[in-house]
């Protein structure tokens, strides 16, 4: 009755969030007096999970699962949960995982709570703290079902080292044709760029930038910082930037360590979507912009003057600290 954790990988390599969910699972296992079992799909570097508290890895190797498939992955995870007698299953908040989580929970008759931001308040009764109302509030939610599925928010618990030695065992779930009834035809993933979901730093531009032709400096600022680029809702509605970059209440949530907003006034819906970021910087020429009330650091000034200066200073800083 170990705690089961689904550790995601991409192209054979575990993702950063895999180490965060493993760290969280270790904390829950400690509270419950048990150990952590991780499930991996076609990952090459499973053994590194021991560093984050995983005692056992159920390693799935299957060519059909090279591309993510929500139903097949959920089926495999539910079989692993049953084999381990797991009562608590820990997941991340990536878009793939949010796709499979409700399928998995239903297969296991489990209560599912996503967007969890802290270690459980208590394990008996089992209560977790999660965001609600698009980050405008928190709920302390009790899960009363026998099996529990918990989705941990990105960057909320953090990666914690707890060295144990991990044993790796092959696991072969039995899958049906029905598991693959939704087929991936084509994956169009921007390569060489940090995604908003994985980013430690996000640089975001708003209508204050006046037009899509002015995004060069946002891209450059992001590049210097190793950051992902994002935008406000009006910018995506105007077609200046792709929808995938829209952050806010109806767009993507942001939970980065640093969020830099350039030329974004800070509508309540935008602030809600980015409020989980730890440190927020705003650059805007309007001192009355609502974002200044929600930010940690601010510069009242013309973005077209401030951003190039900031890029220059950051380059100097990077050169000195390289």
């Amino acid at each position, binding site marked *: 009755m170990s705690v089961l954790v689904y550790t995601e990988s991409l192209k054979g390599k575990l993702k950063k969030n895999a180490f965060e969910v493993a760290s969280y699972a270790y904390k829950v296992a400690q509270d419950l007096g048990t150990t952590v079992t991780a499930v991996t799909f076609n990952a090459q570097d499973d053994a590194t999970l021991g560093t984050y508290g995983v005692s056992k890895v159920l390693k799935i190797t299957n060519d059909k699962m090279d591309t993510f498939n929500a139903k097949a992955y959920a089926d495999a995870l539910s079989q692993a949960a049953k084999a381990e007698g797991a009562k608590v299953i820990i997941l991340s908040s990536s878009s793939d995982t949010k796709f499979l989580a409700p399928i998995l929970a239903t297969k296991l008759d489990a209560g599912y709570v996503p967007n969890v931001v802290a270690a459980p308040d208590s394990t008996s009764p089992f209560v977790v703290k999660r965001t*609600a109302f698009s980050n405008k509030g*928190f709920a302390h939610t009790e899960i009363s079902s026998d099996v529990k599925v918990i989705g941990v928010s990105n960057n909320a618990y953090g990666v914690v080292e707890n060295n144990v030695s991990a044993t790796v065992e092959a696991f072969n779930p039995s899958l049906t044709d029905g598991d693959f009834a939704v087929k991936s035809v084509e994956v169009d993933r921007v390569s060489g760029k940090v995604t908003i979901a994985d980013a430690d730093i996000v640089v975001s531009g708003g209508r204050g930038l006046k037009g899509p032709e002015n995004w060069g400096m946002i891209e450059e600022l992001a590049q210097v910082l190793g950051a992902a680029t994002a935008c406000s809702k009006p910018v995506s509605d105007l077609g200046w930037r792709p929808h995938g970059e829209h952050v806010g209440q109806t767009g993507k949530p942001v939970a980065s360590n640093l969020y830099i907003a350039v030329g974004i006034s800070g509508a309540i819906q935008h602030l809600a979507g980015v409020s989980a970021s730890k440190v927020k910087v705003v650059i805007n020429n309007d001192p009355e912009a609502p974002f200044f009330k929600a930010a940690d650091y601010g510069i009242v000034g013309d973005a077209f003057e401030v951003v190039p200066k900031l890029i220059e200073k950051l380059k100097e800083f990077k050169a000195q600290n390289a």
Partner: protein
Amino acid sequence: MKILVCISNVPDTTSKINFTEGDTKFDTNGVQFVINPNDEFGLTRAMWFKEKQGATVHVATVGGAQTEPTIRKALAIGADEAIRVNAEPKDGFFVAKQLAEVVKNGGYDLVIAGRESIDYNGGMVPGMLATLLDMNFVNTCIGLEIEGTQATALREIDGGKEKLSTSLPLVIGGQKGLVEESDLRIPNMRGIMMARQKALNVLEPVDAPQLTKDEKFDKPAPKGAVKLVSPDNVGELVDLLHNEAKVI
């Protein structure tokens, strides 16, 4: 093709969020309720299937009588019929069980729900519904085409998109991209008048267990004042981010 669009009745995106009864309930005082934005993108796409491919569109919600103005709005936008399951939504699984009953009895080929509601952000109803009914499922759907019983869907993934092929019956967790913001429709007077004539069937709920319960709510701690840096001294910001905030 028979389509069911699942509608959640949620506080308008500009609402101030407060809690009441010892922080155990959401305070609805002074709050304007609307169609959940993710559901409205789906409803608008369903209207396209109605107009271009002759689909029949029903809408369903799980909620008390107070949700009827929201569901009437969906009828005014152009849905043919509405269903309200007369129960307070206890949790995502409870809602999925109620909707599963509606889908089973209504023989729908396509169910469109929002990827998540903007109030409780559970994001679980479409996936649970699909699993309960053993229907195909695509989440975070940003594009959908149907030819006969074949479906081609685009899904937003972290850092890009994925094209998927599947078949009906299908459940979609939709969002912006299914249609654009500019495609959303404001009901006109004719639509509003016609909506009054359309059927709004009230069904009693089926038994379903409650698996999760929000025991208590709280709000984020108030933010300290912003620290302003002069635009002539941008280096200070770099310094603060490195030495004080320790994020670079």
